[in-house]
């Protein structure tokens, strides 16, 4: 009677027989893109960690105590609060899947062009992951660039090493990826996306000249003919998916695809208007007021306000399918107060529904051409080339009907103008926190407090970065906690 103890897993391919074919390589890359659809990457928490934590937004009305405290830079129940924990875990999942691609695909016997593209996609996605970890948690993150073993406990890295790795990944990806628009790439990363993220990385490092050199060929059309779409508001609707302005966007699923791991964008449900959504995140009044400091050439309010924020414009102001007055009758607690402000961007308010679904199929814009223009303007201005910078800003202003700025502005005035343009252009797109850091605005804490009372509890030297999650620290003694936490 034989009873063979030599058995193999009949349920799934195992590592021994995977990474053998071009199909395996593509599947591995697809599984890496899949991690972009997680709460901690692009599905939900971006809006909270980059926007409501900055001076344009707040969570201080959220009934969720930990989330309420989050925009006040406090963690009453510990450092494993969902935003910080999910962002950490999900981003490292992205990075580790990218590492598997980068480590395994080169050994596959397959078409060379496809191989080179797949590896480059891995590098682009890894660079994207580290860019977020670096700008949210700071340099104490461990830098993992090869698939780890179970006994590894990777140590904290340092700023220069991580930034260098991000630059390298984006540089190599840009060289190998196809020069396509998002509409041609099927949602995959392109050379323009990698080149643009390289520029963004260099800018964030305040390497102005290098950033400028990286961004210039994009504007020169060497990576494809990117352009600003005429109607700003459509960028953040479903019909704006994969338009000509996009260098990279995350392809969102919907409620029907959720069972296949392809859920949609949660930002409008979580941080949008009360009623249709939960309004856990809201704009600050200061941010709202910034839209009125300038007006269009036809003396209208900057149209980006109406694409970004719900605010009371009279009883008939539409909020989803109902008027403000109707909401005030149905939900006086929220709409009885006409000074209330709610985020509108990425919401499906135009569909005729009074409810916002959790899973909006609206692609999250990671990098768009307006950002490329404004980044290049900033890089040039910081190098003293203000006159060359201003026309780039004016391209972005012209789209929304604002009068051009004079090329004679001083460098300081231009710096302020570019920052303000970014403020109005990129609300809820995960940019403001980067701007504050890059332009050293955290050092002027009094100004930030005048924008947003949340900054009353901002501790300089500590609150710029999130605490490393406690679970990571419990399990990995080689990771240092950030200063002050």
């Amino acid at each position: 009677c034989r009873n063979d103890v030599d058995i193999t897993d009949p349920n799934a391919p195992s590592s021994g027989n995977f990474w053998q074919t071009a199909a395996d390589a593509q599947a591995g890359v697809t599984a890496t893109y899949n991690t972009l659809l997680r709460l901690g990457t692009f599905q939900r928490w971006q809006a909270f960690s980059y926007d409501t934590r900055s001076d344009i937004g707040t969570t201080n009305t959220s009934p969720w105590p930990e989330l309420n405290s989050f925009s006040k830079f406090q963690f009453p129940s510990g450092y494993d609060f969902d935003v910080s924990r999910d962002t950490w875990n999900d981003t490292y999942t992205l990075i580790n899947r990218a590492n598997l691609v980068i480590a395994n695909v080169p050994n596959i016997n397959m078409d060379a062009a496809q191989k080179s593209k797949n590896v480059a996609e891995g590098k682009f996605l890894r660079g994207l992951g580290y860019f977020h970890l670096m700008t949210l948690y700071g340099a104490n993150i461990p830098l993992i660039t090869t698939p780890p073993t179970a006994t590894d406990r990777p140590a904290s890295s340092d700023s220069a090493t991580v930034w260098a790795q991000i630059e390298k990944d984006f540089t190599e990806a840009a060289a190998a990826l196809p020069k396509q628009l998002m509409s041609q790439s099927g949602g995959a990363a392109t050379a323009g996306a990698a080149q643009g993220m390289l520029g963004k990385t260099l800018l964030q490092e305040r390497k102005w000249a290098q950033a400028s050199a990286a961004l210039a060929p994009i504007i020169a059309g060497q990576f494809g003919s990117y352009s600003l779409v005429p109607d700003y508001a459509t960028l953040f609707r479903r019909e704006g998916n994969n338009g000509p302005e996009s260098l990279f966007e995350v392809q969102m699923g919907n409620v029907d695809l959720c069972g296949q791991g392809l859920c949609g964008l949660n930002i409008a449900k979580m941080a949008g208007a009360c009623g249709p959504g939960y309004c856990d995140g809201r704009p600050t009044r200061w941010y709202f007021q910034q839209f009125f400091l300038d007006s269009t050439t036809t003396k209208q309010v900057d149209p980006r306000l109406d694409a970004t924020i719900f605010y009371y414009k009279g009883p008939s102001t539409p909020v989803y399918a109902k008027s403000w007055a109707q909401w005030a009758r149905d939900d006086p607690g929220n709409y009885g107060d006409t000074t209330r402000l709610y985020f509108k961007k990425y919401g499906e308010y135009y569909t005729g529904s009074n409810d916002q679904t959790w899973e909006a199929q609206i692609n999250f814009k990671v990098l768009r051409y307006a950002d490329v223009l404004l980044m290049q303007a900033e890089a040039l201005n910081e190098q003293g080339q203000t006159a060359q910078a201003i026309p780039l800003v004016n391209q972005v202003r012209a789209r929304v009907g604002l009068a051009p700025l004079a090329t004679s502005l001083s460098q300081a005035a231009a710096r302020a103008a570019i920052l303000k343009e970014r403020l109005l252009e990129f609300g809820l797109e995960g940019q403001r926190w980067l701007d504050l850091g890059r332009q050293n605005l955290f050092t002027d804490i009094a100004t930030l407090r005048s924008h947003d009372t949340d900054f009353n509890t901002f501790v300089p030297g500590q609150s710029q970065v999130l605490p490393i999650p406690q679970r990571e620290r419990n399990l990995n003694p080689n990771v240092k906690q950030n200063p002050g936490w």
Partner: protein
Amino acid sequence: ALATTALAPAAGAQQPRGTARVTGTVRGDNGQPLVGAQVALTGTGYGAVAGDDGRYSISGVPAGTYTLRAARIGYTPVTQQVTVGDGQTLTVDVTLTASATTLTAVSVVGYTNEQRRDISGAVSTVTSSDIQDQKVATVEEALRGRAPGVQIAASGQPGRPASIVVRGQNGFGNPSPLYVVDGMYVGQQNPNINPDDIASINILKDASAAAQYGAQASNGVIVITTKRGANGPSRFALNTYYGFQQIPKRIPLMNAAEFQNVFKAAYAAAGQTPPAGVSGGASINTDWQDALFQRGAIQNYNLTASGGTTSASYLLSGSVLDQKGTVINTDFRRYSVRVNSDATRGRITVGEALAISQSNQRAYPNGIFGGQALPLIDVVSLLPTIPIRDPNNPGGWGYGSDANPNYGVNPVAVLTNNSNRTRSNQVIGTAFGEVKIVGNLRYRLNLGLDYNDLLHRVWTSSAQVRYLTPVLTGASLFQEQPNTQQLLYENLLNYDGTFGGGNHRLSAVAGQTSQNNSYQQLSAFRQGFSNEQLQQLNAGSTTGFTNGGFYTPFRTNSVLGRATYSFKDRYLLTGSVRRDCSSRFSPGNRCGQFGAGSIGWVVSEEGFWKGVPMLGSADFFKLRASTGVLGDQNIGDLAYFSPVSQNINYVSNGPSGATVISGGATQTVLANTDLKWQRNRSTDVGFDLGLFDNRLSLTADYYVNIADQLLVQLPLPGSLASDRNPFVNAGKVRNAGFELGLTHRLDRGDFDLNTTLNLTTTANRVVSLGNGGQPISSGFGDVGVARTAVGHPIGAFYLKETCGIFQTAADVTAHKAQPRAQPGDLCFVDQNADGTINDQDRVFFDNPIPKVTGGLFFDSHWKSIDLGLNFRGSFGNKIFNAIKFATERTTGLSNLRAGYNPWTTSNTNTSTPRAVFGDAVNGDPASDRWLESGNFVRIQNVVLGYSIPQRLLSSMRISGTERPRVYVNLQNLYTFTKYSGYDPEVLGFGDPLARGVDDGLIYPNPRTITLGLDVRF
């Protein structure tokens, strides 16, 4: 009831010779000859030992009248008057009734039957007579407190198996022992056996005893033997009881007005405006405990028929157990049928044991609405200002609101609208054939089957049960059908015999055993049920439906040998070897050798014994020592594989709105392809002592278990991004302790009293850990209040140490490390004196495991009345109390314990810090504020029975029955403890690395009162 046997006196020196002879056969009550029974004419030196066929012969007896006493260890001795004349041969056949004492029972030590007397390893035995008076639903409940070295934590949830740990926790995985039922390996899950069917339970604790189970024995082995028929006319037994159950304790909580007053002050202290539910009037005052807890009921009916001839026997039994839980809408029902039979003809014996059962359990639904439902936390933390039902809410249930922002799940709603049901159809069967080859050598073929077909259904209605969690678009149904099949195949050669004039006794077994197990699982999920009355998969929508299935095989091949040898009943020797090969390990690491040996010396058999000072007066004294190595493969199937997960997809949104899905796959699990067996070295020394005609017996042991190459499911940091924690061989754990069992029998005419005391001490320490000695953090969410680290017990608490409450601003200044604290705040010890309090200030509290556990039993009879009283206790541990954490802080809005007495400037004489809403410091979970003493003494069982006298029966014209017994049984009558949670005993479930954490997931043990009737006829 327990009985103790006096051993026959050693043959005297000079006896007068006569010419008469007394001869006969000594048999047990099941008809089998009793080898080694001692027959003596008391008060004389005449006596003999029964041979292999049970026959004895005492010759050279002078004529006269004597008291003949027949005794054998494991049986109640019998005396009778005999008169014999000169030259006469008198035949006296004696039947002895099996009894059990701590020293003398026959134990099924696995592959061999061994006399307790010959055992030199550590084995605890519980027999049916020990547990028959105690009416319990499961095997483990029957074992509670009975055996030294065995810790049992039971839960009050109907149908939930208890957690058993034998001699401390040897590893970091499931600490449950291996269960073997009538020779069938049923794994680490409690087999759902009807306690009325059990003849004996042997707990093999040390290496010597357990080694015959080699690779699966490292946590000890529980060998269950079911009852079999006996030679004689058919007999029937009816056992039935009915009882009520109740959760014995309520947590005293605040009413609505009291709760509002505290939180008004707490919000004011934080400078915040309270929500309307706190500031407004309190028209609602919900008592959630009243709504969730109910009076449960338990009833059991069991009918057994048994009988046989000298060549065949049978036992049939059927039973129904029906239990209604102490939490609403939880219940358990079990139907079981058993057929055990044997037949012998000539050299051949065949037999079988077959149990078929169905059980149905309804449990608390877990994982509802994005989080595990915590019934015992929700029930204390939900606000009294939230109604149970609220017609204004979608679905009609009450839950938190903007006015009452509390995120608990309404437990009444969950239990009413949703259900979590498991149906199990199980067959456990063994069959054997045995042939006497020559002399005492036998060949035996064993076949075993354990087949379990489960159906698990989780139905979730569409109603909303939690604040801000939306109503589902429809109800949902998750259904899974796991099917387990385990097959056993064994070929064994057995030898049992005596030689050399009975001086040498040898019991040996050698053979082969293999297991072929498979687990097949099918699962499906649908939502969108338009008609919630139709709760079947096909009634749901096909949008978003999912299904899945997998199959995991597990096989072992082993060869084993074991021999027990005794010389002159004095010198005992046992050795076991076993080689196991398991499919659970990678190809190079599959096979392992395990073995053990033990020696024993029955000193009291030595000629010099009587002359030993003090001890010489003892009737029986045996010294024992054993050592050996056992294995562990408790890692689940296919664990060393690093599978590639499929269906990790991505979508492409076309400009037109069309979507294209591409399929992805990658490795999502970090695995260890070099897994090896865990090896546990176990050493035991002990002695057995019988005093005063063996009325008092004492068994004592000291043991040391060292588990090496520990199989650890190592939690990985998030940066490694593994979806599952892989097993690694890491580290070493040492367990050591004393075990003491003391039994005393008092017999005064109509009155007898047996007293049994068990005490166990346990000391558990991690000696080394792999991976550079890095500690393993676990317990209570991600906070990690427990930590397994070198030099500390497994799952030691790892917390900040408090140092009272700051009374004045000067106290704060003097303390330095908490500059932002205010009077009334908790002080934390700045362990590293760095001037701040942070995670680096956590320290170990090494008391998650009781140092001493024990049981004290009194069983007495007086005429027709029997009374049993059973105490259990546990000492020396602390418990991390999640109920206290939920009800004694103001971090968020939750109800508070009645008498919650926070510090204020006018109320400084309190140990509770000030109440500030949103307070993270005083509410820090990682603080010793939440530790409480786990000491308790419990009146576990009180049973009072009355056996109806024969004359009463005859006056009622009832004949043909033994005396029926009626009884009342009170379980868990009272617990003496300072622990403020529901039950200090619910530890040990869930995470084996956080056994000191009472996380509020486990039902407390109920208080039960039952009335019962036992009839035999």
